[in-house]
């Protein structure tokens, strides 16, 4: 009864408007990003979008070239250009990019037998990867040389369409990707590209989750200590283990809500980025989801459960460490800096997991990085997808042991006098020592 009273109080403190809004915003963002990325990939793959061309040469040859572009699915819109300056041209036409076929282009190729220039003006508005994904002009530019070559061979040298097909594509590259004991007719670069997409977002989600939950419990404990409500509680007829247990259970419930909510949002995000169709290089089109399924890389419900389990364990570690750190606060200012050890411990594997493969690092460095419990969460998704079960379960076991040690330390701290005397404020200690010397 008393325990439930304490638990109710903890939940009331932890589940506040700030937490709910934060959770909704983060999850919505994840879902929206997934949807947007899915749409962008779809758009890029379908080659849709407008291609603006200014045909200043105006010959039968250039008209034929534009017709070919249209046949390839590009929505070509021809524009008249009256200005010379590139900026003024784009401003006058109110577009962001333009392909200019200059006067004399056909003569240069067909009569002078020289390579001719085509101008491409493009306005950069963003440096983000997604900014250029749906740009049909960039895609059309890639096809120009191929179209011109075909036209030359067809009209200039009298080759048949079949001959051109063979010359243009003498080798039919059939890419097969093998993962463990499964294979699929898909380019490895496509799979790596997909892994990179999740490699960016997953660590961010984990990092946010760790920081958020740690801040939550550090703030809760330090406020109790600073406001002396902890002294009031611990002098009341209720055991210290109940007080600590209610705090941990309350935090664990909130952590579980977070982990489940993030897993649902994450699966929605992955569904978004995997829904786009892709050319796998043999004339077939698979969805990313189908390709991953063939390779056994598609996350099953069990996979998501294991990822959720690892996330939960990570949160429990963050919470138990935060319990100890929160108890060290002496004032509101010191409480804010107490998150630093967790932030650094999460930042190191976070950065490394984005840029490097921990498995390929020298033994000593790899061991040191693996000693950070959060590392195993950042690498969990790759371990689950690629079936590195020894590393996954080893990491989870290590996290469990780490959690038990932290919880034991927190329990010892809460049942001893140290809960009222311990502090971690290097700045103040330094000032105090300095003042004693002067």
């Amino acid at each position, binding site marked *: 009864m008393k325990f439930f009273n304490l638990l109710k109080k903890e939940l009331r403190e932890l589940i506040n408007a700030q937490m709910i809004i934060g959770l909704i915003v983060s999850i919505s963002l994840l879902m929206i990003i997934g949807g947007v990325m899915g749409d962008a990939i779809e758009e890029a793959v379908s080659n849709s979008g407008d291609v603006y061309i200014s045909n200043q040469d105006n010959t039968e040859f250039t008209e034929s070239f534009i017709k070919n572009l249209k046949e390839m699915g590009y929505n070509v819109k021809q524009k008249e250009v009256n200005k010379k300056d590139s900026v003024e041209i784009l401003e006058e036409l109110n577009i962001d990019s333009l392909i200019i076929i200059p006067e004399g282009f056909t003569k240069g190729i067909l009569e002078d037998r020289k390579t001719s220039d085509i101008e491409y003006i493009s306005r950069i508005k963003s440096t983000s990867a997604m900014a250029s994904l749906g740009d049909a002009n960039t895609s059309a530019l890639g096809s120009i040389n191929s179209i011109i070559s075909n036209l030359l061979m067809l009209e200039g040298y009298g080759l048949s369409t079949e001959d051109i097909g063979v010359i243009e594509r003498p080798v039919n590259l059939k890419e097969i990707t093998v993962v463990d004991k499964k294979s699929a007719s898909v380019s490895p670069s496509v799979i790596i590209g997909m892994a990179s997409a999740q490699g960016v977002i997953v660590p961010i989600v984990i990092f946010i989750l760790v920081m958020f939950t740690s801040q939550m419990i550090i703030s809760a404990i330090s406020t109790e200590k600073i406001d002396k409500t902890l002294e*009031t509680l611990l002098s009341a007829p209720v055991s210290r283990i109940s007080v600590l247990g209610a705090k941990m259970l309350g935090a664990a419930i909130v952590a579980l809500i977070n982990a489940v909510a993030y897993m649902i949002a994450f699966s929605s995000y992955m569904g978004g980025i995997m829904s786009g169709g892709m050319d796998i290089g043999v004339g077939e089109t698979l969805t990313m989801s189908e390709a991953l399924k063939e390779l056994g890389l598609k996350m099953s419900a069990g996979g998501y459960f294991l990822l959720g389990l690892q996330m939960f364990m990570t949160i429990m570690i963050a919470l138990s460490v935060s319990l100890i750190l929160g108890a060290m606060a002496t004032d509101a200012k010191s409480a804010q800096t107490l998150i630093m050890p967790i932030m650094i411990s999460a930042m190191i594997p976070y950065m490394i997991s984005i840029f490097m493969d921990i498995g390929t690092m020298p033994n000593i460095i790899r061991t040191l990085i693996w000693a950070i419990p959060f590392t195993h969460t950042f690498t969990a998704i790759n371990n689950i997808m690629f079936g590195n079960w020894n590393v996954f379960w080893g990491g989870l076991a290590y996290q469990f042991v780490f959690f038990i040690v932290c919880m034991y330390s927190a329990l010892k701290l809460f049942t001893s006098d140290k809960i009222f005397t311990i502090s971690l404020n290097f700045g103040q200690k330094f000032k105090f020592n300095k003042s004693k010397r002067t």
Partner: protein
Amino acid sequence: MSTVLEVKDLSKQYSKVLAADGVSFNIDEGEIFALIGPNGAGKTTTIRMISTLIKPTSGDAVVAGYSIKDKPEKVRECITYLPDEAGAYKTMTGYQYLKFMAGIFTNDKNKAETYIKRATEMCGLEDRLNEKIASYSRGMIRKLLLSRAVMTHPKLAILDEPTSGLDVINALEIRKIIKDLASKGMSFLISSHNMLEIEFISDRVGIISKGKLLVIGKTEELKQRYNVANLEEVFERVVLEHEVF
């Protein structure tokens, strides 16, 4: 009159500091005992030991027949503790706070209701009890906490600086409540820097410095013993006599 608290040679050694050094005193039923002393004298350490928050290095204290060393859980049923400059849970309303604390002291719903009713009447916050504590003034929080501390009618209420930071009107109200409850049999252990307050409120005084309880006595007796006009001068004489400065 029965003894509610018996402190016997209580000491607390931190790594390099002897915060309490063989402190001994008694508090009878319905008595207000004040522990006074400069900052760092050992008042809070002594109070925390009696409140079972920290363990003594040596000695013992017996509250209503229960040892703080052997039966701390029983001691906690007989006492309430109001720390110096304590706050309350800001996300709760005053009423929710009282309900939560009542639930910590008893599992009996009727008893809890009685506690809440008693505290509600005593604090005088009326409708403001339905507002979040975050919106309360310091005086309101102190009144809420004091009413919480005495709502269970503990055998011993331990109040660390009960009126610190309060204006004259609020301080007077709180002193009145304490006096009134003591007259009904509740015992108080109070710590304070405010000598005038102690002179007004307490039945007996203990002067503590550098962890040692130097003198114990009724205010009038001490004034006569040291031939001075008020408690402040008693305090000055005692600490000078024992060469604590």
